[in-house]
């Protein structure tokens, strides 16, 4: 478990908005490992894990896209029943509230990215579990 940086991107709620953003990502040669899209009323927020988030953010800003770097906790897990329970129970036991989460499953294994309010959460959770590279 470790803290990693994700891209948060503001998107208009209208046809073609995601296509526009992903075109820019393509042209900037940015590969996304995982992402989710949250829906607000009348707008959306795309959150994504990219290889070099700071680079990616700079490139997107140059295209006038609203982007912010935010920290999420990446937790590697075994791709089998019960894994989510095992991890989320640790959060609960430590009284850490999860704001949102999204998952990734790739050749090297599975991982879940958690966004929490508590900045010290990662350190507190590390005590509970040995660190491992999420991706």
């Amino acid at each position, binding site marked *: 478990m470790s803290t990693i940086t994700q891209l*948060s991107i*503001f*998107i*208009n*709620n209208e046809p073609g908005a995601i296509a526009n953003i992903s075109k820019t990502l393509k042209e900037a040669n940015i590969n996304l490992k995982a992402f989710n899209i*949250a*829906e*607000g*009323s*009348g*707008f959306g*927020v795309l*959150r994504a894990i990219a290889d070099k988030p700071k680079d990616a953010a700079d490139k997107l*800003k140059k295209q*006038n*896209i*609203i*982007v*912010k770097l*935010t920290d999420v906790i990446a937790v590697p897990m075994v791709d089998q029943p019960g894994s989510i329970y095992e991890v989320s129970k640790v959060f609960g036991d430590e009284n850490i509230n999860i*704001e949102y989460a999204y998952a990734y499953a790739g050749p090297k294994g599975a991982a879940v990215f958690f*966004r929490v309010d508590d900045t010290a959460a990662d350190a507190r959770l590390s005590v509970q579990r040995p660190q491992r590279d999420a991706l």
Partner: protein
Amino acid sequence: MAYWNKEIECMPPERIKELQLDMLQKLIANLYEKNQFYRNKMVQKGVKPEDIKTLEDITKLPFMYKQDLRDNYPTKMFTVPLNDVVRFHVSSGTTGKPTLVGYTRNDLDYWSEALARSLTSCGVTDEDVMQVSYGYGLFTGGLGAHYGAEKVGATVLPTGTGNTERQIELMQDLGVTAIACTPSYLIHMIDVAREKGVDIRKDTKLKRAFLGAEPWTEGMRKHIEDATGIKAYDIYGMSEMAGPMYTECEERNGIHIPWDIMYVEVIDPETEQPVPAGQKGELVVTMLRKEAFPLVRYRVKDITNVILEPCKCGRTSVRIARITGRTDDMLIIRGINVFPSQVEHTLLQIPEVSASYMIIVDRINSLDVMTLQVELKPEAFSDKVEEMTAVKKRVEYEMKKYLNIAVKVELKEPGSLPRFEGKSKRVIDRRTYE
């Protein structure tokens, strides 16, 4: 044919002109003496009270604009001391400050007098029950219609706006025969009644509606009348004049303007010269009896034409045709005046968004819906949907506060709204009136 004040309403046209000239001369002499604001305007234009020798000489007088009311906010252009002012009403201004109007006791009396004549000309009597579904409060619609109907002796049911189901119930229970509201609200009411299984034609005693405060058409009139069997009358006015004041008569061929209350001109807005009767142009009005503050050659910005042909009802006053548009960019949304400049002004106070915007107006279920698209500033962006929703709510709150109407806000990426060089087209009005 019933008249409220037959002698005045059926006065021979030649006599009207003599009396109007007399009223105009006295009005201007009084303003020149007692009203610093209008005196200054006259001095600037180099015109003196004695230059008004004929009615046509009115064109020598300076125009007044909505901006004048704003510049003199709140009471700097009042002619009378505040202890002679018995009421204020407030409407939207073009930016920031609203437009404030004041009334002396006589101003209120003549407002009701105008409406009493109008309502009588449409057959309203003391036997009627009048439901007033215009907003009460700062807006002149509710209180104006209220006192006008009371003056005629009708029984007033002051429902105001909203709570439509209850309004329909009361309409049935109290035997309402006449209603005053916006045309879109009546259409909404008809729809809601139908959903509740109430047929206005069979299940109520409603016979007449006085519809105004927003643009409407003959198509809407036909729709309302076909759906309900009532007669729908156009009512006109605005807070600068007093409020809603003038209606069509039973002939429904133009709005009668009581000659002893308001003098009308129609001009070409470009050349500022009068256009011939029957030709469309911008309405310019002079309130001949107004005491609290002057309204002389006021550029109303509504487009209409004067009708001089005698009306079959026997009234000899001029009429104006149904308002067909505006010479400025003012929007009327649910009866409330909205200027794009107000929206811009309000956005400048909100740090999270830029001043670029688009206004989209739709009519959904007979009601106007205004959507405001604004651009989020990059530094205001948060990853949390909750915080973004709070920004959106803040814009909605500020708009409600300044425009006095509910606005649906959509946050957009910076740069995603159209940019304009020269005259901007920030309003898309998708309402259809037929």
